[in-house]
């Protein structure tokens, strides 16, 4: 175990640095830089002003010098300074990361628990009415664009019914603290988490159903039946546990993509998260900030995958870490 962790931490460091290097060069491929954007916003810019900006941001240096200084910064975990926002990148990220993690965590927990349960029920009633209803609903959510679900939820629950806030993360005027604040955030969280979660819920419903049905066909389920084990017990003890493995695998893969989905939802709901920050940084050519966000995302994704590997060993005794 310790040896495994040591080895995979080495791999993780390698992967993260690799991603950082690729990011750096990828982002230089986009035309334009921060100086151009700022000059454009100012309305009038002389070549001298642009040159001054570039010098201030270090953009006048040759590419390899910029790259080496970036590499040095990454290795020392220094994410640089966002000239655009006038703040260190690490501070900006620290400000926004919790909101994104909260949104991601809530939606994925919702998707896996509810989707898993629905898939479980569908598989147990395969071919019957409950299965048809669940599978159809899952298909609808799967096929509907995320932003449209978001807008419709807002229209129904915020505008028509006025039950939930339209956007944001907390009520500005309230000045709540402690539990009151938590309840307020939870209320703001419902719609964005639902929007992001419903798509993934559909995926987990379908995946769990398929996975359960596959396990139902296996020999050890027949053995359990031959032992006279109750159907409910067979479903929970024999089938579900074996069906969870593909779910965990998909979860690991999707946590990366859900970060991408968060950008859309954060924009629709004005959620002050990392996704929206990245979106803004991209349009403003705020490369330091963008690189910092991408770096942090890659760290999160890589460590989630490590956690998935560890979860395997708990779920499946055949898998041993060495």
């Amino acid at each position, binding site marked *: 175990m310790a040896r495994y962790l040591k080895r995979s931490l080495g791999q993780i460091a390698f992967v993260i640095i690799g991603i950082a290097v690729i990011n750096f060069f990828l982002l230089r491929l986009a035309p334009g830089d921060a100086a151009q954007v700022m000059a454009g916003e100012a309305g009038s810019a002389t070549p001298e002003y642009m040159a001054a900006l570039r010098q201030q941001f270090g953009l006048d240096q040759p590419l390899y010098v910029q790259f080496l200084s970036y590499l040095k910064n990454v290795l020392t975990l220094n994410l640089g300074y966002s000239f655009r926002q006038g703040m260190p990148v690490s501070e900006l990220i620290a400000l926004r990361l919790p909101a994104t993690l909260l949104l991601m965590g809530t939606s994925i927990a919702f998707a896996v628990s509810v989707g898993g349960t629905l898939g479980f029920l569908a598989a147990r009633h395969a071919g019957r009415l409950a299965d048809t209803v669940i599978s159809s609903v899952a298909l609808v959510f799967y096929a509907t664009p995320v932003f449209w679900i978001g807008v419709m939820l807002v229209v129904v629950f915020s505008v028509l019914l006025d039950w939930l806030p339209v956007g944001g993360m907390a009520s500005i005027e309230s000045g709540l603290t402690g539990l009151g604040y938590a309840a307020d955030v939870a209320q703001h969280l419902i719609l964005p988490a639902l929007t992001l979660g419903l798509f993934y819920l559909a995926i987990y419903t379908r995946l769990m159903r398929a996975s359960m049905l596959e396990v139902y066909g*296996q*020999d*050890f389920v*027949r*053995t*359990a*039946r*031959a*032992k*006279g*084990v*109750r159907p409910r*017990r067979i479903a929970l*003890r*024999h089938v579900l*546990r*074996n069906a969870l493995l593909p779910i965990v695998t998909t979860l690991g893969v999707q946590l990366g993509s859900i970060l991408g989905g968060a950008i859309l939802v954060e924009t629709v709901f004005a959620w002050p998260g990392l996704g929206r920050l990245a979106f803004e940084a991209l349009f403003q050519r705020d490369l330091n900030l963008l690189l910092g966000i991408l770096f942090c995302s890659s760290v999160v994704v890589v460590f989630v995958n490590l956690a998935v590997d560890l979860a395997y060993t708990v*779920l*499946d*005794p*055949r898998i041993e870490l060495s």
Partner: protein
Amino acid sequence: MSEPVLAVENLSIAFASGRTTRRAVHDLSFAVDRGETLAIVGESGCGKSITALSLLGLVPPPGRIDGGRVRLEGRDLAALSEAELRKVRGARIAMIFQEPMTALNPVLTIGEQIMEAILEHERVGRAAARDRAIALLERVHIPDARRRFSDFPHRLSGGMRQRVMIAMALALSPAVLVADEPTTALDVTIQAQILDLMDELKRESGTAVVLITHDLGVVAQHADRVLVMYAGRKVEERATADLFARPLHPYTRGLIAARPRLGSGRFGRQRLVEIPGTVPSLSGRPSGCAFAPRCALAEVACTVAVPPLVAAGGGSVACLRSGDVHVPEHRREALDA
């Protein structure tokens, strides 16, 4: 004579696909007494395994029993509700399967899986069930049973896993043990150990055994009686010694002739004798005797109607030509042409 523990009467099993139904097992009858081993033999696809599953009421959909009865200790299993049937399964009739590698749940320890059988049927505490599971592991000669109890299946060899399956099946001292090709997936030396173990346990407990196999060597050594199946029907049923001494049905003779043997031919090798052709599929069964297309003795009468089972040689056989055991060579050629 006491009533047999297991009696199968005119059992038919059909598979529905679309609008057509196809019979996998036709009008099958047999009985097994306490402490007796009945072997059911035949090639792949002749309905052995589905018969085995039907004894526990476990015919997988779209298959279903569409005729006849299975009586276990006098009770008609078809008359039981699903809940009542579940109380019988594992407790009064138990089953072990062909593939010990996949028949155990990979994520539960073998001990838990044996305990599960006990806890499902009896109101005992977990500690008591645990002790009994360990005793069962010892009874099937698993060394260091107390430690092995918490091993997962992948830690055990195929032979050991089959021992675990046997321990699990015998946990509640069932009246009947159904063994569906229990040794097919194992090495020859392990096969012998497993079969000897089953014999030993059968002698101790008086459990009746239904042994499904295609290995006639196994049958000769371990079965009291043999039922030969072909294309879903019983074609011959005899005491083991009689069957091997004087097989009546041409199919049985073919099976016996097709056994690999040591020491015959040059350098102790010869080409294996085989029965030409294959078992007809469910959809393509001929009228009359299903074996007729592969049979050297077949004549026109064989293709008209299914031959009835008649008493012969201390058992029964379903063949119009079973009297012609020794066919003169010239006639066989004429029939082949």
